[in-house]
């Protein structure tokens, strides 16, 4: 089977070309680094099927990062390269094109983001560029699909003029020469989007914009999340689902082992979707009506922030703070991802250069960054006691993030590398990709979370029934009651937190905790141990030794912070 490699600089719309070619739903983003792990797909090429590989974005074939090393490695196994070039930044992009040609592999050039050249005042003579490179050059607009058909037709015509290998200085000179010949620039005025772009990386206007963006994101997430809960999911569960279960309950004998697993315990003769804890009650209500609305709302907002190109600007603004934590500004992106789910967040720490940074970032995320599922439960349960308590939970976690990062920066040997990133122009998010990505992430949540949640509910009921939890609770009672000031039953919730943090939070509900105890419980649950999925990726990304170190830090800091909170509250 023909192997087609999609190669190009980061941020040239390579992933968009990929999804146009293959129809496979790949994640398309506006910030560099999302395709460090590459994507594969298939496409029709005449009568045959060809394999398409979305190679990580690379500026040069003289590797300067891990992602570029991977790209170079993958080049060896390819038959044809579709070189995606940003038409608005020809010079830098053509350097890679020349390097590819020197490798002697057949190349087709997709001159992408072609639509932007017009209003940027750039004229490119495509015929002359084709002559100078000696390979097919097709203008494309991958976001709208323009030029993709022509690109597919050109793939069989890919050729390899194979210029002799040369030094990088000579290659730059040749690029300069070509650009001089094929490109004309017209004078033009700055657009409002560019003015906004400049303002967002200046200290004061940028700081103000960042606060405005983050505050409005938070408000929008709350608005969508609460709206879905109050107007869609709660009415469905209360008015449609509860009556069905109330009919079913007497049929199952209103109590007993099987009744408790399927429906759960009736609270004063009624179903309580949070506290009953049966498969058909809490097992469905927690993931669908409490967590899902916030997952949808969060990923919707994150997708918009990604695809407008705002995140790299946040990285520039946060660089100073992040340096104090042993990281640089770019680490803010995995951290924000962690507010959705810690699993992709830990995976995306790969965009950071050094092992040291990846260790610090992954440890901080798994301790101090609560995922959307946990946050939804905290907002639901702790929020019922008053917003000041929710603020206490978030405030504590934020302080832990800062203090722990500060300590790790001092304690872990090495230094933090400097920030060096391209800031893409602001773009209006293409709704197709925003919604496609939202769907993929939501679907991912549902298939990952629901089986584990249902399994956890069954396991909890069975373990309760056989008194296993009582034994654990009695064994750990001194620590839990004396140090954390929680009832000894809370330890079962903390143990279940290893499976799912949202379920664990739900287990705190029937314990009739005081507001202060709820705050302690939420914070300890967030910090104590990552859920099993995060644990697995931590192990894979960090290795056994550093994973154990990270775990030690988690246990110690959770107990210290929980104990301190207990003393204060």
């Amino acid at each position, binding site marked *: 089977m023909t192997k087609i490699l999609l190669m190009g600089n980061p941020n040239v719309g390579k992933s968009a070309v990929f999804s146009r070619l293959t129809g496979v739903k790949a994640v398309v983003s506006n910030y560099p680094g999302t395709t460090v792990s590459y994507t594969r797909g298939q496409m029709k090429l005449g009568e045959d099927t060809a394999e398409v590989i979305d190679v990580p974005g690379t500026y040069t074939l003289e590797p300067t990062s891990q992602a570029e090393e991977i790209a170079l490695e993958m080049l060896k196994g390819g038959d044809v390269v579709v070189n995606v070039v940003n038409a608005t930044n020809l010079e*830098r992009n053509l350097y890679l094109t020349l390097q590819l040609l020197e490798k002697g592999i057949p190349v087709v050039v997709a001159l992408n983001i072609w639509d932007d050249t017009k209003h940027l005042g750039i004229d490119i003579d495509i015929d002359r560029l084709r002559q100078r490179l000696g390979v097919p050059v097709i203008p494309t607009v991958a976001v709208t699909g323009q030029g993709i058909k022509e690109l597919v037709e050109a793939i069989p015509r890919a050729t390899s003029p194979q210029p002799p290998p040369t030094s990088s200085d000579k290659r730059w000179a040749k690029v300069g020469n070509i650009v001089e010949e094929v490109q004309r620039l017209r004078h033009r005025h700055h657009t409002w989007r560019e003015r906004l*772009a*400049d303002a967002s*990386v200046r200290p004061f206007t940028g700081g103000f914009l960042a606060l405005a963006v983050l505050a409005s994101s938070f408000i929008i997430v709350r608005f969508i999340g609460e709206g879905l809960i109050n107007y869609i999911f709660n009415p469905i569960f209360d008015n449609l689902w509860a009556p069905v279960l109330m009919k079913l309950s007497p049929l199952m004998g209103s109590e007993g082992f099987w009744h408790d697993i399927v429906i759960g315990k009736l609270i004063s003769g009624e179903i309580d979707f949070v506290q009953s804890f049966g498969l058909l009650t809490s097992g469905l209500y927690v993931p669908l009506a409490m967590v899902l609305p916030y997952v949808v709302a969060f990923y919707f907002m994150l997708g918009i922030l990604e695809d407008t190109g705002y995140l790299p600007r946040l*990285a*520039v603004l946060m*660089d100073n703070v992040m340096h104090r934590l042993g990281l*640089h500004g770019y680490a803010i992106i995995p951290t924000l991802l962690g507010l959705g789910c810690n699993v992709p967040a830990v995976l995306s720490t790969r965009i950071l250069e050094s092992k040291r940074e990846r260790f610090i970032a992954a440890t901080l995320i798994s301790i101090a960054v609560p995922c959307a599922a946990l946050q939804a439960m905290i907002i639901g349960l702790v929020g019922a006691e008053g917003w000041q308590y929710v603020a206490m939970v978030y405030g504590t976690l934020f302080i832990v993030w800062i203090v722990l990062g500060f300590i790790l920066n001092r304690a872990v040997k090495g230094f933090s590398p400097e920030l060096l990133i391209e*800031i893409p122009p602001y773009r209006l998010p293409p709704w197709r990709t925003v919604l496609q990505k939202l769907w993929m992430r939501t679907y991912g949540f549902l298939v990952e979370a629901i089986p584990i949640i249902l399994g956890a509910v069954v396991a909890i009921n069975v373990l309760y029934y056989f008194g296993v939890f009582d034994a654990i609770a009695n064994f750990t009672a001194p620590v839990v009651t004396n140090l954390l000031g929680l009832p000894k039953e809370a330890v079962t919730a903390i143990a279940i937190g290893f499976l799912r943090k949202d379920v664990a939070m739900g287990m705190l509900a029937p314990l009739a905790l005081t507001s202060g105890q709820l705050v302690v419980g939420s914070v300890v649950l967030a910090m104590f141990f990552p859920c099993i999925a995060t644990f697995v990726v931590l192990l894979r990304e960090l290795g056994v030794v550093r994973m154990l170190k990270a775990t030690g830090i988690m246990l110690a800091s959770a107990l210290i912070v929980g104990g301190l909170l207990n003393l204060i509250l």
Partner: protein
Amino acid sequence: MDKAPTTLVQMERGQRGTVLQLQGGRGLVNRLNALGIRPGKKITKVSAMLMRGPVTIEVDRAQIAIGFGMAKKITVKLD
């Protein structure tokens, strides 16, 4: 005297200039080259964050943010 070489850090916001030299190891020079920052390139300083924060410049219509330590090593001849 105003045409004397300076660094990205010392440039004022909005000033234009030409890159003279990248004073760093091979690795740093390669990374900067790959992003289009080479001796002879025309650049404009877009902004700098406070307290030794990153410097943002524009080169060939692309914006690049460069950490303070690196920015110090890039010398520029002002226009």
